[in-house]
């Protein structure tokens, strides 16, 4: 799994000031599949996710050691520009965060900041992205209405569409369904199942049942360490470490 990984993390440690948040993590994310990061609150799974496109750079006092390689090159090399990195490795957040603009403008934002000016091209991108995010049929007649008027689930799918519009290769999702109701959650899960045929996806989730439904690979985190990882089905039915088993059987979490 390590050799063919799209992204691989090697001996990666992260500190928030004096706090050692991630301890020597090594993990690979295979292409065109979905890896779920699970574990109790504060275990470092979101921190690891945000390390994969260097969103942690925005927090003051963060220091890292080790490597995160995207197709072989270390994204923490000093000469790496985070702008193209984040275009390649996009992110969906816990709370849907569409811009206070129209649906169209939300999707067109990404292509625009990357230099696309032609209206006809933008229209194509918007339509394609909304179709890929399974939202087109619901919004095609009101592309000019404010995105904030959509329901929470629609907003989250809009955020996914907005991300697809910049043609990323890796999608990072930080508890993408935690603010959604069950029906909206189901729709987002269906969408994610479809997207993993094309993209490398990493999802942080609190919800083991969800991880079981959508993920191919699973990594379990506890207190800043990765306890174990593997194929989801195997790990869920046959955990080798007692912390994993305790967590899965609900003894803590």
């Amino acid at each position, binding site marked *: 799994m390590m050799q063919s990984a799209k992204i691989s993390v090697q001996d990666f440690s992260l500190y928030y000031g004096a706090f050692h948040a991630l301890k020597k993590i090594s993990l690979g994310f295979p292409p065109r599949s979905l890896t779920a990061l699970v574990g109790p609150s504060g275990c470092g799974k979101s921190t690891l996710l945000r390390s994969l*496109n260097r*969103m942690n750079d*925005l927090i*003051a006092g963060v220091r890292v050691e080790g490597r995160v390689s995207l197709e072989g090159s270390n994204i923490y090399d000093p000469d790496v520009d985070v*702008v*193209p*990195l*984040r*275009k*390649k490795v*996009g*992110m969906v*957040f816990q*709370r849907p*965060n*569409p*811009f*206070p*603009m129209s649906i169209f403008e939300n999707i067109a*934002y*990404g292509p*625009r*900041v*990357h230099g696309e000016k032609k209206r006809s091209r933008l229209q194509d991108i918007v339509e394609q992205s909304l179709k890929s995010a399974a939202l087109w049929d619901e919004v095609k007649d009101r592309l000019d209405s404010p995105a904030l008027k959509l329901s929470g689930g629609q907003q989250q799918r809009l*955020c996914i569409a*907005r*991300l697809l519009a*910049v043609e990323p290769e890796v999608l990072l999702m930080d508890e993408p369904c935690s603010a959604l109701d069950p029906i909206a959650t189901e729709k987002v899960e269906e969408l994610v199942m479809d997207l993993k045929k094309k993209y490398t996806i990493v999802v942080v989730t609190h919800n083991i049942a969800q991880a079981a439904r959508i993920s191919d690979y699973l990594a379990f985190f506890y207190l800043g360490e990765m306890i174990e990882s593997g194929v989801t089905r195997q790990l869920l039915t046959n955990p080798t470490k007692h912390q994993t088993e305790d967590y899965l059987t609900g003894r803590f979490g």
Partner: protein
Amino acid sequence: MKKRNLAQRTAFLLIGASAVITFALFALILGYVLIKGMANINWEFLTTYPALMGREGGIFPTIIGTLVLTGVALLIAVPLGVAAAIYLSEYTKGGIGIRIIRFAIESLAGIPSIIYGLFGFAFLVTFLKLGFSVLSGAIALALMVLPIIIRTTEEAIRTVPDDYRQASLALGATRWQTTSRVVLPAALPGVVTAVMLASGRAVGETAAVWLTAGGALKLPFSLHDPTRPMTLHLYYLAAEGLSLERAYATAAVLLVLVLVVYSLAIFFRQKFGMKRR
């Protein structure tokens, strides 16, 4: 139990009375000036030149003087103030340098306006040889309203949810693209409020323009012409006993203009507040 009730009622009464007194004072001043002034305001007063230093005639050039001085002051102060606010809120993470800058801005807000006038006279009028002019007066006003613009804009930028910035950065936008295309548009109503508050201050200012704008009773046709705003005209009319009637009429016009500007500011601020969910 009874004692507590009594305390509660007394407190309520005192607090309520304070609110009523505040409003009554406002109404009294407003009513007094408007009643005394409105009698002498008519179309002619607003559109003709003063005669005999203001004893007769209207106040047309002073209305223009006020508008031109305020307009030019905003043209200088708004870009500068908004840029400074963006720098302070989006591009810095605190630290000693920033705290010094912030302290300077707060202090700037507390300087008496006559000091701006005096500085304007010494530095702009005399040293830079800008003379008594629209430009000198407007620069002095601009310096005076700069802290208002910076603080109000900064507040507006800070209320823009961090989610927007994160979303934009995560799409591979640069920091500047994020600021200019997402943060600023979201903060725009607050920026408009800042401009309104600043123009209210500028329209009503006397001391800062007294020693800088000159005071000529004619229309300014260039930035280098001297001009006299309504506030200054009002001061001369009253202080030199030229015409108390016309002083009140001028005061009423000035007051209405300031009220309109501040109402717009409040309107924008409320609209802005509602948008934040």
